[in-house]
């Protein structure tokens, strides 16, 4: 019932289709985009057909977001590009034209105003509902926000500032905002990495919604780094490499290894764990940690050990790193690092004690977006370069140059603002910032969000090297595959406490996921884990996306 108003519009598929299924809706021809020192796109041509979910994949910095931003009018393309929507010419680089032709966007950084509530954020996309005299009709406005959100997610806290929402809620809010007037003249929905940090149980939710939109004949363009999602939801896939389109395929004709090699050009690496944990020495000891959702969490991480933490949205997992680091105030519990108590709510002290944290919200918490790559990388370790009260810029620049190479950061230079980097490359900068601290304890919250599959392996290797050097690593992640691949053991958090512990033998993606839902893990076999990137088939490993065990009430059907 809710659906009819907003999502339904004309039912192309059922009635007389305005556009026959398969006919091109969006056509882009010969699109190039050059930034100072970087060619982001080179002669790219893309066709999106009616009634398809189309994935756009490629490594970090391959030009996916740039393509989307040109379409959205954020960037002007180089001369020579043309585009049309349902045969009507579209001036690329003109955001209003794209909007008028019914293209809607959810960008990688979501574009929410952090100190406004969901109601306001939604109004900002569409305008406030006003009565005579310009008075805002708050009740109507609220209802509209609630309606828009109900299409994406259940139980949304309408009155919390966006900055205090979880990653999933923020994404859902951005999608709801983009979709709110979609029924009227929607021609294409574009989503740039909506699932980067979304808990798996919610991903299926989102995909149900996307399929619904597809059924109406409205195509969806989706960017993702998760291969299993490409196969689970999309009909066709376009592969970008270094700004050029290398392949356009039916998903049915592809498998993961083939897709990965199209993206990477066939390079892949094998991970080497190096020295294992030193089980004699506890580096991080936590007793009774309590916060908003956590209720008395206990855990130990040994020197050189990598401990994974899994848990659904709302389980308390999202809080752990922030509470341990002192980013948020804990309401109870003791934390000891190398046997010495860590005071609450003092990130400065944490850094002095060589504790690092890669936060889940890269844009708001991880980076100073307007500052250069160099300044971001050394912010936590600036004192390394200080002599006589002065920052020795040469030494700093040399160190940063080394990190840029070691982490494979794709950037025009170390001096450009970090917001000119692609999402995955920004994430690498955050990791580099903390790994250069040579931390005693490294807290990782969604550490490889938005990082492509090859770069993820590189970053995992760097995490392994840190562990081999003695760092105690705690990884909180919504990606079971990642947890299974790098953890020595995995703790599963449910209802604010540790619900299960899986040793590395049993920590398969399948078991981890099952445990997050509260079901007992199987003994072994079900999901096998292959370290080799080339045969990294997440579809087989993850039960969610092939046959959903989650009874996620279909949000679109909701009466």
């Amino acid at each position: 019932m809710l659906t009819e108003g907003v999502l339904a519009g004309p039912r192309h598929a059922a009635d007389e289709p305005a556009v026959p299924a398969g006919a091109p809706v969006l056509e882009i021809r010969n699109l190039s985009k050059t930034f100072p020192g970087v060619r982001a796109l080179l002669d790219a041509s893309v066709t999106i057909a009616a009634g398809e979910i189309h994935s756009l994949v490629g490594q970090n910095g391959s030009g996916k977001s740039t393509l989307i931003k040109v379409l959205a009018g954020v960037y002007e393309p180089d001369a020579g590009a043309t585009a049309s929507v349902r045969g009507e010419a579209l001036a690329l680089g003109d955001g209003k034209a794209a909007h008028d032709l019914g293209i809607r966007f959810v960008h990688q950084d979501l574009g929410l105003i952090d100190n406004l509530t969901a109601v306001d954020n939604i109004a900002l996309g569409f305008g406030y509902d006003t009565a005579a005299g310009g008075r805002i009709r708050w009740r109507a406005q609220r209802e509209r926000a609630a309606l828009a959100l109900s299409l994406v997610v259940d139980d949304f806290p309408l009155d919390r500032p966006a900055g205090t929402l979880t990653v999933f809620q923020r994404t859902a809010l951005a999608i709801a905002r983009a979709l709110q007037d979609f029924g009227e003249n929607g021609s294409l929905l574009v989503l740039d990495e909506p699932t980067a940090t979304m808990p798996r149980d919610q991903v299926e939710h989102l995909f149900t919604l996307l399929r619904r939109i597809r059924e109406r004949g409205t195509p969806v363009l989706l960017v993702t780094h998760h291969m299993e999602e490409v196969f689970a939801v999309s009909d066709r896939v376009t592969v970008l490499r270094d700004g050029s389109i290398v392949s356009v395929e039916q998903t049915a004709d592809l498998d993961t290894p083939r897709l990965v090699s199209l993206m990477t050009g066939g390079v892949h690496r094998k991970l080497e764990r190096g020295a294992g944990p030193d089980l004699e020495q506890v580096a991080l000891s936590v007793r009774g940690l309590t916060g908003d959702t956590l209720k008395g969490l206990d855990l130990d991480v040994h020197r050189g050990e990598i401990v994974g933490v899994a848990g659904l949205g709302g389980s308390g997992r999202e809080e752990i790193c922030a509470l341990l680091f002192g980013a948020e105030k804990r309401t109870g519990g003791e934390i000891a690092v190398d046997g010495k108590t860590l005071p609450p709510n003092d990130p400065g002290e944490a850094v002095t004690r060589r504790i690092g944290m890669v936060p889940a919200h890269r844009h708001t918490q991880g980076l100073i977006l307007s500052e250069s790559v160099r300044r971001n990388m050394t912010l936590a370790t600036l004192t390394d370069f200080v002599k006589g009260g002065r920052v020795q810029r040469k030494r700093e620049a040399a160190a940063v140059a080394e990190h840029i190479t070691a982490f494979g950061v794709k950037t025009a230079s170390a001096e450009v603002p970090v917001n000119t980097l692609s999402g995955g490359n920004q994430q690498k900068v955050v990791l580099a910032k903390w790994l250069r601290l040579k931390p005693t304890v490294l807290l990782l919250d969604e550490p490889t969000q938005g990082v492509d599959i090859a770069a993820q392996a590189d970053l995992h290797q760097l995490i392994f090297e840190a562990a081999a050097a003695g760092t105690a690593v705690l990884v909180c992640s919504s990606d079971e595959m990642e947890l299974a691949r790098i953890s020595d053991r995995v703790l599963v958090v449910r209802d604010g406490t540790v619900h299960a512990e899986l040793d590395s033998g049993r920590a398969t993606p399948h078991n981890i996921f099952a445990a997050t839902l509260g079901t007992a893990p199987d003994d072994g076999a079900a999901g096998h884990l292959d370290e080799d990137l080339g045969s990294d088939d997440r579809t087989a490993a993850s039960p969610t996306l092939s046959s959903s065990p989650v009874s996620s009430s279909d949000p679109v059907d909701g009466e």
Partner: protein
Amino acid sequence: MTAPATTAARSKGSGPASGVAGKASAGSRILQKLAIDRFSGVYIIVVLVVTFCLWIPQTFATQANLRVLLASQAITGIIALAATVCLISGVFDLSIGATMSLSISMVGVLQATGGVNPIVAVLISLAAGAAVGCINALVVTRFNIDPVIGTLAMSAVLAAVSWWVANGETVLYGLSPTFVSFGDIVLGVPAPIIYLAVIAVIAWYVLEHTPAGRYLYAAGANPVAARLSGVNVTKLTWGALISSGVLASAAGVALTLQLGTAPFAGGVSYLLPAYAAAFLGSTQIEPGRFNVAGTVVSMFIVAVAVRGLQLRLPDAPWIADLVQGVILLLAVGFAVWARRRRIARG
């Protein structure tokens, strides 16, 4: 806060465009060489000076005029640096004008009525500026009051206090002659311009070359991320507000020794020029961020334009306000436009 340098989601200038050489026309290559987007202010000053020298040579192109210009800008410059430091830290301090007034009253009354040694009087005035900064910091960091509102209120309170200290009168006599001699001409220039130069160099060094400066920029642009990198943002806010209080007081002292009198509300009119210079400065030298060199250059643009027009139109006392207001609008508008263009073109 509302500074061009701080809105997280927006892209900042990446300096003059490099690369893409193949596509750049000869014209735009020349523009790049001249680094118009960084040094436009310097060129504008040259153009203004040449224009006025040709237009009104008898009054503008004189040594006396140069001295007046430098002397008045020395004071504006010091207080503009106070504004710059605050804006870098992401905080508006609207009390700098009133703090300057307080310092004028104090340094005047202490000498004239209190008979206090001028050095002690200066130190007490500077300490008063620091105290104002502390109160501002307390209000902002402890009571979480919006800095604009907190410092605006502070400004009203300070206006009352200065009036009370000076008993509502300008101190005309009784300033120590030694004190006043520090406002004289030294090495052919008014001494206060030398004080400005010294203060600007120190501020530049601290902001650009010390960890404190780096942290201040980081905390101003994204306090959350800075805190999560171990930066003590609260301490920096204190530091910035105390510095601006002391600098505003220094501007008050400099004005007093230059005038030889202490007008008890003399700081108020410096607030707008200070912020105009700082905002215009964020489009200069290091576009996209508030910076010391940019502030100083911008201040001279405004000064030359105002001074030239004042001399040309002696019967138009409103010209200074008009020019300052218009330049501030143009400056902020230009900064926004330049940033949009940089984002779209890359």
